[in-house]
């Protein structure tokens, strides 16, 4: 799994590449939380999932957990480039109601009001 983090205004961008399962879940949880904890001003999170080859309930658990942290800060969660596979997993789990899905980063930035940063 490869992770790239980027901050724009009050939003944390996380680009995830690789397979998201029990084996990689801890690392993802730890690294996102590190960013959230280090910066109390971060409210929202946008996940770029273009590079996700696989996700199961362990990976989903990490995303749901982060959603809860962000909700507590009054923020919202977005996801970009969600494949049909991942979307189905989101659907079955009810995650689809908790996050907004965008075609591309530009659309997400518009929706999160951080374009141009």
């Amino acid at each position, binding site marked *: 799994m490869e992770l790239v983090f980027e901050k724009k205004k009050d939003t944390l961008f996380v680009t995830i590449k690789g397979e998201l399962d029990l*084996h990689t879940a801890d690392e993802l949880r730890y690294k996102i939380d590190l960013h959230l904890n280090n910066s109390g001003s971060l409210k929202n999170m946008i996940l770029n999932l273009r590079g996700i080859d*696989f996700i199961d309930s*362990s990976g989903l658990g990490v995303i749901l957990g982060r959603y809860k942290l962000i909700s507590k800060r009054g923020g919202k969660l977005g996801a970009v480039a969600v494949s049909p596979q991942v979307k189905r997993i989101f659907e079955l789990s009810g995650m689809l109601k908790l996050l907004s899905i965008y075609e591309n980063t530009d659309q997400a930035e518009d929706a999160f009001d951080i374009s141009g940063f």
Partner: protein
Amino acid sequence: MTKNKAEIKMTSLSENIGFARMAAATFAAQLNFTLAEIEEIKVAISEAVSNCIIHGYENRTDGTVVLNLLIEDNRLIMVVEDYGIGINDIEEAMQPSFTTSEERMGLGMVFMNSFMNEMEIESETGKGTKVRMVKIPEKQE
């Protein structure tokens, strides 16, 4: 392809979840599955093997997870087995969002059930757990 069989015994390490997924997907590719169906197989195997490691062996890394793959009559039969703590109440464990781990969501069995044509569990407390799943290609050859 009338009949083919592979049995994989592996250490209860989280590294082997991806290995089990790839093995199941490669074996399954002998049948006429679509890519979407192969993805479903990968999720089901991932959930089953993860459960053996997290729940069955409570994250101990000295256990053995057995994955049996069988192709018969154009069906893929997958059996995932551990010799761990077992499940007390299988019906309860199968309930969506039932989990005994605080950080988990109780979705593993839901995914296995949704993605497979058949799924059944056998378990004995203190002896271990066996999940049997069947997947049939939707497009018949």
